[in-house]
């Protein structure tokens, strides 16, 4: 491959290729590197390449300094902050974004499905990064412990507090039992010796009838 130097060679060993090839979500992309109108500039971040150049907008821009994890993607099996990764450094690497997790035949990744089943998000802005960091963890360790999961996600910011349901979803995927960090108790479930009621006929009292568990109806 023909390369050019970014700075005079006597000051640095950094070399920047003329062109780079990446596999992103199983598709091969080739970019020329430089200052031209359509070139990937040496300072272009992976996040900008994904979002602005390729319209993979699943990865979210938030802190811009690698602190919040909203932009996390997987590069060669490792979760990285796309806002702190230069595209020009990724020649020959494989990148997976949230858009690449769903399998055309098998459907959603088990982590994605667990996030739906456990409602493991609120606003959803941090969710792409949380899922990708989780996926990278599970790719290396199919059965992480609850502590390993919490530690892996320590760099992911979530302000709505989806933490409890995220951990519930991931512990489910990992097969961890008794890992629940939050309990949700409905008082009605604790009523002892409920008053017997008529056999249920209709589902909805406002649609077509009125049935109660604990009333004298």
């Amino acid at each position, binding site marked *: 491959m023909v390369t050019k130097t970014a700075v005079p060679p006597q000051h640095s060993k950094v070399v920047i290729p003329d062109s780079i090839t990446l596999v992103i979500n199983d598709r091969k992309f080739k970019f020329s590197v430089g200052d031209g109108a359509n070139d990937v500039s040496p300072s272009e971040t992976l996040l900008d390449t994904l979002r602005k150049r390729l319209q993979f*907008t699943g990865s979210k821009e938030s802190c811009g300094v690698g602190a919040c994890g909203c932009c996390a993607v997987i590069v060669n099996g490792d979760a990285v902050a796309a806002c702190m990764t230069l595209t020009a450094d990724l020649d020959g690497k494989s990148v997976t*974004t949230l858009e690449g997790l769903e399998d055309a035949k098998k459907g959603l990744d088990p982590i994605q499905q667990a996030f*739906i089943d456990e409602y493991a998000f609120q606003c959803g802005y941090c969710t792409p990064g949380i899922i990708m960091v989780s996926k990278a963890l599970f790719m290396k360790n199919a059965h992480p412990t609850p502590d390993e999961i919490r530690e892996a996600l320590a760099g992911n*910011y979530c302000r709505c507090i989806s933490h409890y349901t995220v951990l519930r979803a991931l512990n489910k995927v990992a097969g961890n039992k008794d890992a629940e960090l*939050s309990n949700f108790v409905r008082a009605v479930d604790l009523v002892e010796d409920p008053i017997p009621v008529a056999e249920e006929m209709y589902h909805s009292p406002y649609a077509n009838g009125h049935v109660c568990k604990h009333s004298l109806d």
Partner: protein
Amino acid sequence: MKFRDVKQPNYRHVGKYTPRKDAKEIVTGKAIFLDDFSLPHMLYARTKRSPYPHAKIVKIDTSAAQALEGVRAVVTGENAPFLSVLGYPVHRTFFEDKVCQVGEPVALVAADSLEIADEAVDLIKVEYEQLPAVFRADLARLDGAPQLYPDRFEHNEVDPGCPYFQPDGAWWQIKRGNPDKALKEAAFVASDKIDFNQMPCPAAPEAPSIIARYEGNEVFTLWASAGSSHIMKLELEAYMPGFTTDIVTFNVGGCYGNKQAMLVQAISASMLAHATKQPVKLILSKAEQLTSFEVRLGSVMDATIGMDKDGIVTAVKGTWFVDNGSVCNATGGQVGVGLGEAQLVLAKCENWFMDSQMVVTNRQQAGIVRGYGGQELNSCLEKLLCAVMQQGNFNPLDVLKKNYVSHGDRYQWRDGRTYRSRSSFFFPEVMQQTADRFGWAEKWKGWMKPTSVNGTKARGVGMGVIGNADVQEDNTECIVRVIPKLDVQNIGGGQCFVTVETDVTESGMGQRSNACKVAAEVFNCPVEWVSITPSGSKFNPSNFGLCGSRGTITTLKPVSEAAADAKRKAMEIASHKLERPVDQLYMKDMVIYVRDTPEINVAVSKLADRELSIVGYGKHTEKFDVPSCMTVFIEVEVDLETGHTEVVRLAGGTDIGQIIDSKALEMQLHGGVGSACLDTAIFEECCLDEASGRPMANSMIDYKWRTFNEIPPYDAYVMESQIDTFMFKAIGIGEISGAALASATLMAISNATGVSVKEYPATPRIVLKAMGKA
């Protein structure tokens, strides 16, 4: 009445978990947030900001910026395309000849790219003459303090009240009974001045973001990461006189009240769009969001509380100083709610003089943040309540159970009117049940006594209670349409779809899906058959938005009423077709059956005239007579050598009336751990360098936040007593789920350390200082 005797309906959908309508889009990256959206010919905006907290602008030179290739407009006070004002009450123009906070816009740039806009901002040269600045509300009122708006606010004091919320006139004080006499007669009295004044940042992961396009004829369209298109439109049209705005929203990446309107950003983008006649996208950088966007109100309370020998608060007298930062935007509404919530917590008190004073200072502009005034005052008031409870050696659980608003108690709300609670009979029982599950009786050892000590680690517990009668605030309307599937081949079809038309933006609460869910409940059909119109102000019926936990009642009530109205019409038509009275019919899965002979039936799709739908209408008009209640408990572990505090465990309890969606509610309770609630008592603050007036945390590395491996266990206890609100007997809770956590945390830290820690946040330095170690 006992809880077990409360009638518990057995719904098909309501109360159960239903995956959100946008769940698959969220987990696959296909959900659209503002920065995922673009318009043709769009320009990019950046803002030149003041580096000084208070300074006259002597000169602005934009010539170099304007000459830069790719720059399409540079707007300053000298060439602004239209007049815009700021503040409610209005107290300034958008561009003044001076700046009142670090980060205040002094010039706006629109360019072909962000990089060019950034370069242009650097080329703008501004000459300032610095002025003295003031950073505390109580100091800003003093003679000789720097004046921000001397022609408008004497001593920086903002006109009290909020006319939009207070049609009978301004209300900003609780005045009743004889507090002086009651204080003299009280068995226990405590006085103190308490700060909750660090003005933390809600820090939504998605920065405030706007795209503005000028349509001509004084009309703008704005695409915004706003929590409420209605609030944004309401305020923006007041601040850009003569213009009409249509607001479109997307999925919003965290709001917490903080991104409801984003007025400065919206006006900035609109000015540039007007100047260039091109769409302009303005997205704040994280540094801008943290250091110049709206933060939580500053709060200082100087008050005295009296309590009788039974633990009933008998008198409250004091003043609440509210720091707006550099601009006051309808803070009178927050003050009204804060004063209202204080009365809910101390509802048996008959002697009040609680004054409030809103003040402008040279700090970062404050705005709406989850808790909306209530959290700010509660964090001071319940801390002072600790002092008087300690004097009487009362168990706080007993005191808060006795004093909290009961069914039938009276209180004034934000409009200044007096209401009588029609809410739950079970709030004390919820407090007790939550306490029992938390293990309060075993952990509570008395005031300033740790639950346990292990070496240098001491544990302590605390609790708090707060309530909110805003759950029915503001009016909303909804249209529900039952739309038969088009049947061009006239094959009889049979399928129907339901469309809910109301303006709800999804910022995490799941109320868009809940609206579909209650409509499906009314029609007794699958939720998948119901959809909701895209959020935006132009084509939807009016909806004030999701604020004050209002969404549960004020959105779901009109939706369910509109659905019931449409259903009633369908049943009446079916009654004619089937020749049976309506009360002999029932509907399931969009087929109407005769009750005893279900083989006689008709599909709803055949009831409407061809090409037409069956339409229902519902509305909600505001009331304030059903307060909610949130009880929280916390156990902390304090390192007595380092002063570091860890949260060991949390518990929260509420009577929600009826759960609409179990998992959505659970997360609303969890939400109190985030969004500048719990950690405002432990480590969250906007640190200010008072020498320069500059906020010091300008990245998510500097600003402290709770990580996944620091999340404590949370026990939620939820009662459903079927509160008389609307068809589904539910109320909302998210606004206040964490609002009492700050005061509860200081109680717990004080008990762990054995000394009263009363400064927020209780960082290691504060804890060690209180212990006499620093």
